[in-house]
């Protein structure tokens, strides 16, 4: 008897030790520089192993506003597009919200969809409310950026998707996640759900969210503008050099195509300084922003870049509008010229700072503090966060915040430990 007890104790202590070691185990995500991590994300050999192909249905004909008169120039965005990975038996459902400017089919969304599908969920992938397709087809105002309005739009769309489902008997509990801006929105959608109670989300995971979307966007804008020597009028010099560097590495290297592996191995030769890396991140953000700015301008007839009484056709050249949209001050320009004026018109006393602070997670701090179902994943070196933001997350979320030592902005999302954490978060009750 005594011997048996000893055995049990030994096993228990061993188990305990493994758990402890497991927790303290080093984090081996291979890229230490946050800029590089953000650009390259996870090298193939360090990624979680996911199925190559899963059962996904793409929905291309969801008419959210049947009465909406969509401008001819956006004819291809009239219907909201989304994708559902579905199990054959009854299963819980995860809704996923994409990051700024990203569609439901972005690389990160597809990766997450596979991971959750593999873990046994139905997975609904939604484009970001800042994606042109969402703006045209599903944004009630045509101008995203006010997080509460965007969350309402998301909620309405999700609710109608549920109604449209022909296989309700296969639908279990609801879960919610999102990365980057989508992570921030997930928190607001969860809050809205407490009132509207359609989904009663069991768990919500925010991945690399922005604390205040305006501040993060301005930070990304500055990464571009501050790192182009001579200013934006000299952007072409930066671009030409970048292309020349890629070509040089490609021509002299062993890679026979421009694969992810090529960019990973040639990173230092392509981006020769941290400033260039920052500029590239800012540039990528700026492309998303140009899409947003142009689309909203036309949808709201704001007359910022496109004359408000001009009807563009499906074959007019838009190149020059792209040039105007992609220069200038970026997100703040959009907010100051299109979004904020529309809100100020209704609330004359509203200052710009007051307005943008409404889209901060601080607004729902009490809710986040007490909602045990909400978790957060981020990195100490996430480039969209300001000093002190990570400490704030720790303070608000406590043990529900999983903070990795590196990974930049969303760079480590596909890393095996991160994927395991993400799926376990939803699987473990």
């Amino acid at each position, binding site marked *: 008897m005594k011997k048996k007890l000893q055995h049990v104790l030994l096993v228990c202590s061993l188990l305990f030790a493994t758990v402890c070691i497991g927790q303290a185990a080093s984090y081996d995500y291979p890229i230490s520089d946050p800029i590089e991590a953000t650009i390259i994300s996870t090298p193939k050999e360090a990624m979680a192993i996911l199925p190559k*192909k899963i059962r996904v249905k793409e929905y291309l004909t969801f008419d959210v506003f049947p009465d909406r008169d969509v401008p001819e*120039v*956006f004819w*291809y*965005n009239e219907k909201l*597009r989304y994708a559902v990975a579905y199990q054959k038996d009854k299963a819980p459902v995860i809704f996923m919200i994409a990051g700024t400017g990203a*569609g439901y*089919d972005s690389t990160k969304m597809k990766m997450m969809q596979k991971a959750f599908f593999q873990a046994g969920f139905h997975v609904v992938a939604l*484009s970001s409310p800042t*994606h*042109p*397709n969402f703006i045209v087809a599903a944004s009630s105002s045509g101008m995203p950026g006010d997080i509460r309005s965007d969350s309402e739009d998301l909620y309405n769309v999700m609710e109608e998707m549920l109604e449209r489902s022909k296989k309700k008997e296969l639908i279990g509990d609801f879960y919610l996640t999102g990365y980057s801006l989508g992570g921030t929105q997930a928190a607001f959608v969860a809050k809205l759900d407490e009132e509207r109670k359609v989904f009663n989300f069991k768990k919500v995971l925010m991945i690399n969210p922005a604390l205040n979307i305006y501040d993060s966007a301005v930070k990304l804008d500055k990464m571009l503008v501050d790192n182009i020597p001579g200013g934006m*009028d000299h*952007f*072409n010099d930066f*671009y*030409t050099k970048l*292309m020349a560097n*890629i*070509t040089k590495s*490609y*021509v002299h290297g062993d890679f*026979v195509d*421009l694969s992810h592996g090529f960019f990973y191995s040639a990173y230092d030769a392509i981006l020769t300084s941290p400033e260039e890396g920052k500029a590239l991140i800012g540039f990528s953000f700026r*492309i998303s922003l*140009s*899409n947003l700015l*142009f*689309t909203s301008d036309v949808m709201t007839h704001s*007359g*910022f*870049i*496109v*004359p*408000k*009484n*001009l009807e*563009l*056709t*499906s*074959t*007019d*050249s*838009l*190149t*020059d*509008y*792209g*040039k*105007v949209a*992609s*220069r*200038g001050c970026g997100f703040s320009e959009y907010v100051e*010229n299109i979004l904020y004026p529309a809100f100020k018109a209704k609330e004359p006393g509203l200052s710009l700072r007051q307005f943008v602070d409404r889209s901060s997670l601080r607004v729902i701090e009490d809710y986040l503090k007490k909602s045990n179902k909400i978790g957060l994943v981020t990195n100490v070196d996430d480039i969209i966060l300001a000093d002190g933001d990570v400490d704030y997350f720790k303070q608000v979320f406590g043990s529900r915040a999983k903070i990795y030592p590196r990974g930049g902005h969303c760079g480590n999302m596909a890393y095996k430990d991160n994927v395991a954490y993400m799926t376990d978060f939803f699987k473990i009750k």
Partner: protein
Amino acid sequence: MKIQKINSMKNVLVLGLLLTLLSGCGAKQPAELEAGMGIIPPTKPVSEYVKSDIVYPVDAYDPWEGFNRNMYVFNYYFDKYLFLPVVGGYEWIMPDYFEDRISGIFKNFGEIRNFMNNLLQLKGKATAVTTGRFLVNSTIGLLGMYDPASHWGMPRYKEDFGQTLGHYGVGAGPYLVLPVMGPSTLRDTTGLAVDAFVRSEVLDWALDDVDNKSNVRTAIDVMEAIDARHRVGFRYYQSGSPFEYDLVRKLFLEKRKMDIAK
């Protein structure tokens, strides 16, 4: 039946082409549109904010922009109502495993083009490797169904006649969106025609003693087109970006430049 289908495919194509050509080629430029009667100037007008002394990366030599943008739209509809449904049917019928074997066969057949153009560019190593690949994959790889050559350190060196022309200094010329085939340039379209001619001659020779030659050839052509579309993930307007035309144009031109430099 098959022939009928192909004929109707051709009809749609020709009709689309004619319509597009007739619909007028001018892509209206924002500055012209802005100057229209009764147009309220925007806060940041193109005429003021697009600077003529600055080079923008998005710029490209695209004098046929009107035609190209029309063709871009046409390709979307061609995909939507004909090409993608056919490809979808093929993917539905075929198990993935067999799809990959069929792709392998056509890729292997394409090594003839790679060989010819590597040779024309006097790329010794690539020509040798391509020859080796073709021999290994045609025999041990069962006509290309399998690709043992890649595992044995013989990668695929893709070259086409457009690249050969570029290698010898022929400029890209105007950007050109081809019906069905999509983004190209005048130079690359010429290259495409040359490669297609060679392919056709080789096929003719290979099928010399086959009965029903023209039917077999048509079947091969159709199959190759389906396989080619099956392998390309690109979908017109899928990005949702209002600047997709510009971005695709830029990426295509840059990629071709790099492939030629390699």
